């Protein structure tokens, strides 16, 4: 899966978690850009992403993310080669 396709799929997950069908995310998007994206929502988001992409993240991986772009790269890096 190309990073652009990852971002597309990630957008759908964001829309579902934040209950907003018009939500747009880009690589530079951070938690401060989305009103409801607080520490409580953050882990719900991680769980939803793990489910959608069939992956599992560590606390260290999640804690070192600074924006959506880094999240996309992390997902891309962790996808098995057959699906990447």
């Amino acid at each position, binding site marked *: 899966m190309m990073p652009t396709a990852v971002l597309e799929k990630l957008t759908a997950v964001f829309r579902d978690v934040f*209950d907003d069908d018009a939500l747009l995310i880009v690589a530079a998007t951070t938690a401060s850009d989305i009103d409801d994206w*607080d*520490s*409580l929502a*953050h*882990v719900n988001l*991680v*769980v939803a992403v793990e489910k959608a992409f069939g992956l599992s*993240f560590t*606390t*260290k991986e*999640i*804690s*070192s993310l600074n924006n959506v772009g880094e999240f996309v790269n992390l997902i891309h890096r962790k996808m098995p080669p057959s699906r990447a």
Partner: protein
Amino acid sequence: MAFLSVDFLLLLPFALVLFHAVGGPRGGLRAPLLLAFSVAFHATWSVHYTALLLGTSVATFGIGKRIGSEPQDAGKWRWLMVGLALLLGQLALFKYAPALSTPLASLVAPLGISYTTFKLVSYLVDVYWEKTEPETDVVAFTAYSLFFPQILSGPIQRARDFLPQLKQPASPDVRAERIVSGLRWILFGVFQKFVVADRLAMLVDRVFAAPQEYSNLGILLAVYAFAIQLYSDFSGLTNVAIGLGLLFGISSHANFDAPFSSPNIQEFWRRWHMTLSSWLTDYVFTPLRMSLRNYGDWGLVLAVVANMLAIGIWHGASWTFVAFGLINAMYVSVSALTLKARNRWFKTRPLLARARKLIDPVVTFHMVVAAFAVFRAGSLTDAGYILTHVLPLDFLRAIDSAGFSAAATEALRGMGLGFDKIYLAIPAFLLCETVVHLHRSGALARIAGRTPVAIRWAGYHGLILATLLFGVLEVREFIYAKF
């Protein structure tokens, strides 16, 4: 030496002149000088404890380097655990041993141990998470961990935010601007402390010492007064700390963001003692929530309970602090689990949604006021008495017969406190809140920019004069300095 003591205020200008005179590339002698000031400040309280905190900082510096140089994750993890055991073990020993063990009852926690520990823990975890590089300059690092303006009650600044500011000082223009801005923060903090907090303290101290001796209305006034006193005292102290930091060219995060107008309890905690909230979120709540993420809502509740209990018992080994933590855990869990459903329900009811905007902050404020009453109470029995006696009948009867302000004045007179003594805090608090909200919206900077210098200075002098005239100028310890 206390921040607002005469000694401190006399020494500060000399320290500042020296500090700003020794510039140069990479900060010149600023880091060693700042470290020397901080060591001297700590040493006026206790030389032994200063040596202990210095030793802990140097040890953490060494452990940070080891975490960075270990090739395998397992090795990094081991060193992180060694560091955390050292830091948290030491904190727990000083905070809880005196209460739990008779032979250690005389042990007094070193000043600033809590906030130094928070900074050092965040540094080690950030190195482990590769959010920050291990620091290579032990002097700069120790100047960071012992930075005297922040030791009493924060703000808890992260190493990656502080160290670059120390090593690459801003241009002279920016530094001059920071000094002016720092003086404003200090002036505002001092006003909050002396005019609002210490005035309300007269009422709060009396009623909370023996609530059974006061009428319900007296208790009600004291419960509200404590919430406002705590906020004004604590944000006043951190505003002074932020201002002092700015005088030394260090800009840090704000610690309060108009918390009493928060629309829900989660947001209140994001806007109250913000640097501790974000510290707990990063290093306690999120890791816990991540490990419990497959347990659904129960995982969330468990992580919230652990987080809020940590906030509660950090204040000390007392059941009222445990209760404070559990009450907030209940608030946050219920609010977080129902927020989505509530938002959906209001989405289809625009009129009610508009009313909600006004009602939610009022409800949140009262939830906070009730929790703080438990926090301040001398025991759980007192807390129970206070919460069951704030609203019943004699209060309504008193209002009914005399009107609220007459009844309140009567209740205060019963405590030997005149109307003028306590009520002055109310306009002063409203003035502070107005300034905070104007600052928050950016309007304060715009208004200040358009105001002629003479009028601005008249305003500063007015505030100084008001503090001298209306402040309660017996030196009373800041509430949070003891945590």
